[in-house]
């Protein structure tokens, strides 16, 4: 344990030494400074280890041989040392980052930096109010010096505004200190607490002055215009220091002094914090300058932390852990982003597109963005979970709501930024010079974030065991990304196979069903990957991530592990979707709906926990007053993933623009995650009533509307992948409808439809992907006549569409039949009729899918097109085998599902009776009707074969003719293009009921987004860039807060 005096000694000593040595020893400055920071870090580490081992508790170190208040005393506790570690680490990294500047610039930069970090350490440790004032002044002076590092107009202006602002802050603080001394006669914190005479009006206002000064230093909304100009104008490295280091220290001082506050103050500070969080995020929406955007983001995060700290009376013992989680994520991520900003050197978000030319930078950027938006496995994720849990437990719904809203807004601009980077046009590539000295600090930051995330779980209120094993695959695949595709593909498939071999036997019931869907789906969709040549950089880690999320989700037994898996899956699928060519806007909308859904889940889960105190799924209870709202929130959260009508607008773009083998992953498999979630929820919460309305009844209509709407919209698409995507919307409507029936048959429908949809969509998307791989064309009317070129693919599509449209004898009919029976049972007659109609509409688009590309006239340029490659066809034929098996013997699947469901819904199931034919042909008997799939298959095939035979016998000299040998009113077709009828196929249908497909949902969401943008633009107007108005803001802010607190409002 190094004594903190050495900090002072090293800091001041080196500072003077450097000044004395002058310019002669300039080349030693940088190493000396870095060494000094290294020493600082060593200091923090030397303290933190005993603390972690619980060898020591808080230690107070006296200076100058006197006890306080006569001399400064430094208190070092766990909290202090963590903060100091953060500060010193970041100082160390900053010095590396600024290495060249320190070397080439004047000596003063190094000195100022050294003094600043030293001061920050001391301000964290000190327990004396006046001492804090002194350090604050030193910080102000040194920061002002740093802000002026870049000598340009913007930084001068920013520095000036900073000086103005800090002079006011100092005055307020000093006034408070003077008053406290006046009323209490001491400025030593511990004395103040122990004296306990802080209740007089004057001392309360004195404390308020002190605290509000610190808060203004932390840049609250709207008194933060000066700070934004600093972030925009100063060198990004200084922005990093301001945002990550100085703010952290000041925040801690604020926290330290917060114990003096009265209960009313807590409330006001919470409000200030949350408003800052909300409005900064809102205004960041319309920012286009990366540094200013980072500034807004910093302010919002600090605001959130202020709020959390101020909520201490409510949250209790966990406050520090939560706040530190968010703070650490913020500090390292924000400094990292500022540093990257310094490397990129562009003042528009679009300039950042250059990042993707350096994959390494891109990964770093991704890590920081996900850390900021509280995704696993970063500390902020755990902190946010704990925060919500605490707020829910104490019934603070209002704060929950505001924090959720703010987090949503935050995700919007962060992911928009990420999307721009990944997809925007690269304007200036030469700006980036990869300097390893500059690159190493962000790398360290990212590593620290990941490590901190890994250990965060130990600080959670309930110790969770998270299954990191699947995530290991992600890391391994990342490490071997340089290998060719087939190696990685084989490895990943092998990993899934091995994992499922050991894990599947452990699962049961619904988890087993979905486990099979996810794992078999993983294998089937990955097989396609063998047809891809080259290295496919970056694909395998993120695919593995999505599957890891899905697989851990079915294993999850607690709310937290489920949520963790859910978020991992979201991240993986987001990147998968983002890989497509024009998918940036769609990936963004996918992410926004996912984040929105996840936040609702978070709220719902934590609220559910607050009712029962249970962390397992038993937390979903039916009979609490909150239950309907919890149910609603979680359901909507899951419905974003199942893309129900209204929440579906991300799906068509995301699925159609994704790569050929990603489409089946995100369509056939990913959507089932939402279904799985709904099943878990419905199983426990069942029917919920809001104002006497059964939510299940509403959901059933939602399912119907989704089915009809999705199918109708699919009918009017020209793009075959878009068509399939809308078809998925429709199919998920069926599943939702089935679940909403809450009966044996309804769930049988939902489960079988889930499995069937998985199979059909996987094979259809793969088949279409195969067509695309050969023709590079997705618009159906540009294709035609491919049946001769791609017969194998044609067969797949043929069976796919017959099955999907529910025509007997193929398996799709089972869904229709069960649906009808279930509807009769449940008395949802109108919905039931509407579902049958949706099935009929499905015909329209399905027929189009096979007619336009495969039948009709073959186009000239497609004459030499070949059949899709073996690896594309293999998974399709595996699925076809399954489809035919399930069609011939439906009981194979349905009976098994029935035995699972009977545990949960003992009434109203199907009865299976043996029939005359021995080979497993069993008739399903319901309350209303009966059906034997095997007979239907045999009889229809029998008739078909007899008729075919007769036709063959009577047409022995049948002649094959060419594509233009058609009756064409005596004319000869002149080109295949003008003869193939495929464009605007259902024009008449559109004319009759096309108004139903008017994009209501898109318009609604656009309106909402415009509303937020308008508010943001209007609010932003208060920052007019004028130092005077900023001062007025600060004063007004102070006055308003003062009156809120003391004016009895």
């Amino acid at each position: 344990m190094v004594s903190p005096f050495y900090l002072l000694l090293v800091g001041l000593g080196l500072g003077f030494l450097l000044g004395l040595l002058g310019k002669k020893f300039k080349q030693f400055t940088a190493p000396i400074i870095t060494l000094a920071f290294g020493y600082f870090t060593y200091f923090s580490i030397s303290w933190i280890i005993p603390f972690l081992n619980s060898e020591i508790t808080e230690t107070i170190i006296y200076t100058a041989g006197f006890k306080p208040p006569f001399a400064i005393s430094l208190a070092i506790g766990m909290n202090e040392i963590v903060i100091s570690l953060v500060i010193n680490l970041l100082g160390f990294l900053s010095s590396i980052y600024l290495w060249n500047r320190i070397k080439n610039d004047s000596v003063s930069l190094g000195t100022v930096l050294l003094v600043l970090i030293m001061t920050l350490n001391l301000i964290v440790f000190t327990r004396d109010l006046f001492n804090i004032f002194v350090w604050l002044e030193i910080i102000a002076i040194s920061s002002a010096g740093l802000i002026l590092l870049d000598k340009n107009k913007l930084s001068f202006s920013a520095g000036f505004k900073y000086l103005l602002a800090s002079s006011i802050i100092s005055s307020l603080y000093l006034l408070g200190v003077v008053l406290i001394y006046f009323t209490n006669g001491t400025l030593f914190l511990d004395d103040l607490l122990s004296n306990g005479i802080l209740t007089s009006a004057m001392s309360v206002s004195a404390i308020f002055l002190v605290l509000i000064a610190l808060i203004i230093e932390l840049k609250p909304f709207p008194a933060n215009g000066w700070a934004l100009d600093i972030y925009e104008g100063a060198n990004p490295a200084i922005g990093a220091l301001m945002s990550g280091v100085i703010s952290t220290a000041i925040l801690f001082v604020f926290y330290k002094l917060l114990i003096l506050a009265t209960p009313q103050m807590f409330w006001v500070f919470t409000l200030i914090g949350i408003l800052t969080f909300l409005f900064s995020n809102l205004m960041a929406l319309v920012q286009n300058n990366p540094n200013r955007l980072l500034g807004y983001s910093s302010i919002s995060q600090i605001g959130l932390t202020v709020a959390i700290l101020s909520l201490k009376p409510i949250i209790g013992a966990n406050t520090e852990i939560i706040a530190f989680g968010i703070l650490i994520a913020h500090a390292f991520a924000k400094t990292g982003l500022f540093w990257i900003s310094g490397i990129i050197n562009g003042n528009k978000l679009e300039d950042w597109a250059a990042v993707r030319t350096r994959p390494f930078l891109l990964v770093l950027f991704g890590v920081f963005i996900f850390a900021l938006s509280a995704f696993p496995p970063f500390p902020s994720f755990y902190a946010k979970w704990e925060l919500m849990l605490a707020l829910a437990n104490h019934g603070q719904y209002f704060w929950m709501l505001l924090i959720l809203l703010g987090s949503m807004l935050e995700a919007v601009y962060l992911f928009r930024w990420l999307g721009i980077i990944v997809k925007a046009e690269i304007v200036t590539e030469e700006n980036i010079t990869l300097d390893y000295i500059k690159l190493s600090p962000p790398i360290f930051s990212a590593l620290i974030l990941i490590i901190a995330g890994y250990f965060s779980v130990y600080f959670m209120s309930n110790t969770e065991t998270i299954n990191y094993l699947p995530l290991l695959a992600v890391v391994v695949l990342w490490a071997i990304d340089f290998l060719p595709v087939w190696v990685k593909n084989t490895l990943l498939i092998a990993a899934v196979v091995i994992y499922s071999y050991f894990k599947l036997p452990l699962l049961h019931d619904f988890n087993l069903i979905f486990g099979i869907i996810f794992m078999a789906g993983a294998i089937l969709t990955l097989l396609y990957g063998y047809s891809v040549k080259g290295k496919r950089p970056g694909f395998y880690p993120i695919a593995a991530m999505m599957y890891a999320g899905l697989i851990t989700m079915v294993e999850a037994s607690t709310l937290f592990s489920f949520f963790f898996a859910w978020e991992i899956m979201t991240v993986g699928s987001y990147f998968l979707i983002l890989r497509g060519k024009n998918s940036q806007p769609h990936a963004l909308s996918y992410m926004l709906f996912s984040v929105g859904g996840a936040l609702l889940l978070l709220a719902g889960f934590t609220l559910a926990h607050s009712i029962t105190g249970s962390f397992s799924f038993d937390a979903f209870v039916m009979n609490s007053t909150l239950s309907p709202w919890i149910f609603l929130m979680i359901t909507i959260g899951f419905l974003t993933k199942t893309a129900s009508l209204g929440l579906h607008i991300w799906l068509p773009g995301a699925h159609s623009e994704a790569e050929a083998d990603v489409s089946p992953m995100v369509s056939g498999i990913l959507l089932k995650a939402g279904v799985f979630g709904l099943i878990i929820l419905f199983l426990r919460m069942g029917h919920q009533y809001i104002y006497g309305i059964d939510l299940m009844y509403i959901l059933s209509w939602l399912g119907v509307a989704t089915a009809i709407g999705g199918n109708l919209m699919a009918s009017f698409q020209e793009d075959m992948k878009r068509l399939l995507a809308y078809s998925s919307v429709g199919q998920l409507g069926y599943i939702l409808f089935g679940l909403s029936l809450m009966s044996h048959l309804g769930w049988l429908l939902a489960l079988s439809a889930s499995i069937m949809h998985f199979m059909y969509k996987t094979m259809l998307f793969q088949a279409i992907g195969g067509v695309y791989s050969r023709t590079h064309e997705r618009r159906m009317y540009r294709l035609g006549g491919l049946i001769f070129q791609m017969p194998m693919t044609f067969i797949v599509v043929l069976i796919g569409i017959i099955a999907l449209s529910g025509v007997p004898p193929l398996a799709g009919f089972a869904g229709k039949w069960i649906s009808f029976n279930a509807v009769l049972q449940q008395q949802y007659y109108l919905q039931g009729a509407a579902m049958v109609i949706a099935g009929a509409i499905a015909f329209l688009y399905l027929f189009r899918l096979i007619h336009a590309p495969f039948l009709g006239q073959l186009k000239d340029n497609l004459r030499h097109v070949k059949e899709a490659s073996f690896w594309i066809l293999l998974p399709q034929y595996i699925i076809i085998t399954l489809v035919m098996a399930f069609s011939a013997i439906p009981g194979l699947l349905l009976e098994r599902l029935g035995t699972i469901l009977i545990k949960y819904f003992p009434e109203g199931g199907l009865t299976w009776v043996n029939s005359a034919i021995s080979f497993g042909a069993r008739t399903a008997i319901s309350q209303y009707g009966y059906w034997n799939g095997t007979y239907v298959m045999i009889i229809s095939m029998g008739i078909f074969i007899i008729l075919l035979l007769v036709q063959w016998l009577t047409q022995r000299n049948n002649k094959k003719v060419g594509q233009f040998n058609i009756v064409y009113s005596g004319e000869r077709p002149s080109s295949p293009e003008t003869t193939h009828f495929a464009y605007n196929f259902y024009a008449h249908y559109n004319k009759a009921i096309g108004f139903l497909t008017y994009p209501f949902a898109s318009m609604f969401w656009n309106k909402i987004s415009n509303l937020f943008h308008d508010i943001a633009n209007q609010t932003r107007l208060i920052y007019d860039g004028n130092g005077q108005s900023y001062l007025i803001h600060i004063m007004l802010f102070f006055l308003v807060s003062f009156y809120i607190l003391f004016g009895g409002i």
Partner: protein
Amino acid sequence: MGEKILYAFISVFLTINYGFLLNGLIRKIYARVGRRHGIPFYQMYIDLLKSLALRTNIRHGVMFYLGPVFRFTGGIGLFLFMPVIFGSELFANFSFSGDLLLLLSFQFFGTLGMALGASESGHPNSAIGVTRGLAQMTAVEVPFVMALMAIAVQYQSISLHEIVAAQQGGITNWTLFTNPLAVVAGMLAVLGSFMRPPFDVVLAPQEIPIGPPTEYHSNYMVYLQSNRAIYPLAKSILIMNLFFGGATSFGEMMLKTFLVIMWSVFVGVSFPRFRVEQSIRWFLGIPLIIGVLAIVYVQFFLN
């Protein structure tokens, strides 16, 4: 099982012949309405024979070849999955394989196959006819399903056998009298599946020279025409079973199906042809409203 198959052959044979004659008869009626002598009532047989006797025939591809086979399989299958005569072993067909919903879905089997075959010919008119057919079919389904749903609710069964059984014992037990709204919706909807005016724009000989079957001839034509004999008959047997008390003898079946088909003939000779979007709007208008009313009726008043 063996005798079932034999019975099936017999019942298909009898019914399809009845269908041929019925079609001839209807054309005769058409002619007489126009004060013509008209074609001989047995003309259908000669036409089939003629088509079969074509010396050359062509195909555009495998789906084109299979299209009529699918179509006819759909027609025969629809018939065979239905109990035609109540209480008759011979005419019970293969109705043990499935219930009403099987019939409802199986009628698409032929439609889909024919659509695939027609569009493989590469003829634009075929494809246009197919889109019209599919679009109109989805609209026809709407009121028809409403009617079916109402009946299923009324009898608490979707087994055709039970529905017929419940209607036995006097004319007042027929659905026609116990649930008139459903019958009206169903009878209006069923007009759309007989390919007669005002809903015959799918074939539209003057406009898109008969649409889907444009390229078909020889044995294909035999299958299509035979299907034209059995499919409407199967459909009207379904209607008869659902609405009009079923049949207890072949004669009763002949009479009732004749009347059901005459209903579409009557409408057909009286009204001109709709365009597709007009017919879609029509089906989604009055028949749909009546269908919804039928469901509301059974849900709230009947039980």
